[in-house]
């Protein structure tokens, strides 16, 4: 009777199909490669938004430092690509050939030790997951075990974002400084810059996004997903039901960090560079805004939020560069005040009921029995 045997309920299934249709079919068929590559860039933020749905929407943990994890993932990927682009052959005009150009400009004469393992793609892929994951584990353990939460946690994550930016900018010789890592060329000898590579990378990213959606949806449907919701409302009740609240918060925060890192790595691949301007406070807050606009309680909503807000950002900042930031701020205020569940909330309130009615009337015509309210009800067959 109450078994949630289905992975998606009907409205989620529609969301899934709609997103898959748009990303796999409609956009690749209608957009030119340049625009498609822009969508690929927007989608990197969809990974972050997906993590924020779990961490913030479900668990109630607001992190204003997701840029940190996005950046760590992106830099791990960029380090691998940069090393490959800095072969002795490519860099023979440098005073020390075979090291990244920015190191040479900063009078560094040998590859630093922590760069060495990034010659290996396997290590890089592991690092993309593990470095941000472990970093989130450390921050999460330090904060949540001491019961630091709410605004204090948000402020601390923001401080971490600021610190990491300063560190990256300050350590020019090791990180490329404010310019970041540019001129990324090949992945295992495969050129990532031409149009056909951009298209392949776009599809790789979309597939990865759907894998992450699957993971997030799986977590949501387990008891852990319900504990996150419970924790957001009545932390003490969860604690006095025998759960270690801190561990669950750490888990949610780490998952969000890993998703953000995958987004960051895809950013380095699709956009072809990585810089501290995607790590600091402003991008981190923007990532929260994408999630809020799309709907922090909805996996698909948040992904649409990331795509649409970024699309608006590109179109508006092309024509009114100064106005964009005001627009973003206004959007955020509007979301918080007027529609706290974002676009997905509006959809659920205004659009979904109409669709349901449409289905209901069709059902009654064809005598297709079973209740139409899909929430956990057994599938009507």
């Amino acid at each position, binding site marked *: *009777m*109450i078994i949630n045997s289905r992975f998606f309920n009907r409205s989620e299934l529609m969301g899934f199909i709609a997103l898959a249709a748009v990303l796999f079919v409609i956009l690749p068929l209608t957009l030119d490669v340049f625009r498609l590559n822009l969508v690929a860039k927007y989608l990197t933020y969809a990974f972050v938004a997906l993590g924020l749905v779990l961490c913030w929407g479900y668990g109630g943990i607001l992190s204003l430092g997701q840029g940190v994890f996005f950046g760590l993932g992106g830099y791990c990927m960029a380090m691998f690509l940069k090393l490959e682009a800095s072969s002795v052959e490519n860099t023979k005009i440098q005073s020390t050939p075979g090291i990244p150009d920015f190191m040479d400009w900063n009078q560094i004469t040998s590859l630093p030790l922590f760069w060495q393992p990034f010659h290996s793609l396997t290590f890089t892929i592991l690092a993309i997951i593990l470095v941000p994951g472990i970093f989130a584990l450390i921050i999460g353990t330090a904060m949540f075990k001491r019961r630091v939460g709410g605004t204090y946690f948000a402020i601390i994550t923001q401080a971490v974002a600021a610190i990491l930016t300063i560190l990256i900018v300050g350590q020019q010789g090791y990180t490329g400084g404010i310019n970041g890592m540019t001129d990324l060329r090949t992945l295992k000898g495969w050129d990532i810059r031409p149009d056909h590579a951009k298209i392949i990378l776009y599809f790789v990213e979309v597939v990865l996004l759907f894998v992450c959606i699957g993971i997030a949806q799986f977590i949501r449907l387990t*008891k852990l997903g319900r504990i996150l919701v419970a924790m957001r409302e*009545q932390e003490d009740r969860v604690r006095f*039901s*025998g*759960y*270690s609240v801190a*561990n*669950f918060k750490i888990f949610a925060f780490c998952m969000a960090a890993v998703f953000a890192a995958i987004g960051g790595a895809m950013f380095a691949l699709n956009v072809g560079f990585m810089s501290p301007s995607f790590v600091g406070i402003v991008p981190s807050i923007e990532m929260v805004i994408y999630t809020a606009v799309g709907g922090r309680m909805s996996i698909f909503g948040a992904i649409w939020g990331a795509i649409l807000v970024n699309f608006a950002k590109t179109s508006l900042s092309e024509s009114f560069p100064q106005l964009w930031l005001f627009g973003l701020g206004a959007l955020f205020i509007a979301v918080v005040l007027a529609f706290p569940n974002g676009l997905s909330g509006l959809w659920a309130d205004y659009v979904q009921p109409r669709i349901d009615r449409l289905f209901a009337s069709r059902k009654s015509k064809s005598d297709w029995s079973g209740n139409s309210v899909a929430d956990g009800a057994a599938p009507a067959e």
Partner: protein
Amino acid sequence: MLIGHQPKDFLLAVSGLTVSFDGFKAVKDLSFYVEENEIRVIIGPNGAGKTTVLDLICGKTRATSGSIQFRGKELTKMRENEIVQTGVGRKFQTPSVFEDLTVFENLEISFPRGRTVFGSLTFQRDQLVKDRVEEVAEMIFLKDKLNTYADELSHGQKQWLEIGMLLIQDPDLLMLDEPVAGMSVSERAKTAELLNRIIKNRSVLVIEHDMKFVEDIAHKVTVLHQGQILSEGTMEKVQNDPKVIEVYLGH
């Protein structure tokens, strides 16, 4: 009382318990003992430290000094979730249920299995869980509301749901903070009936103001006043204690 004999006889032994908040001692050198299958009611005027005592036992507040032994285990050094796993359940004064979850999900979360992160990821809603949830839901008069979201329940129903959440944990010591406060007369009668049913085979520590209700259920009554025990004993004895009449019952 023989030294070295006590921990075996008592389920809960509180001794010399003191807690001070910035110098104010909410509980002062408090000692009391609860036996197996005993129903103990704590009464006392506002600010007497009743809720603080429950907070101390369940670990919500840390004791400044003193000891709380539960089946010989020292609770003052354990974390809240460990205390729960030892067998102490706590109901709060205001109903604290998960309003965005259904009654079924509320009860399921309290089912004592899969309480770690990994355990909750692999938790299966099997027949055992479903049967137990339905059994408890029937006891707390919410069997036909399993799929209702908890925010749609009445105040009394939320109180029952929270009691049900404790029940499904099957604690050896159940602590209830004003379980009938804010309930209608009929809800109150049903709650008394419910409590009488669930207190079998476990000890219960109740805070309650409703003297009629206290009389109905209490084996023994402890009267707290300014963080200390004013009187202790059967309801009859306490009611006739001149000190108690003066500070509490006389009003």
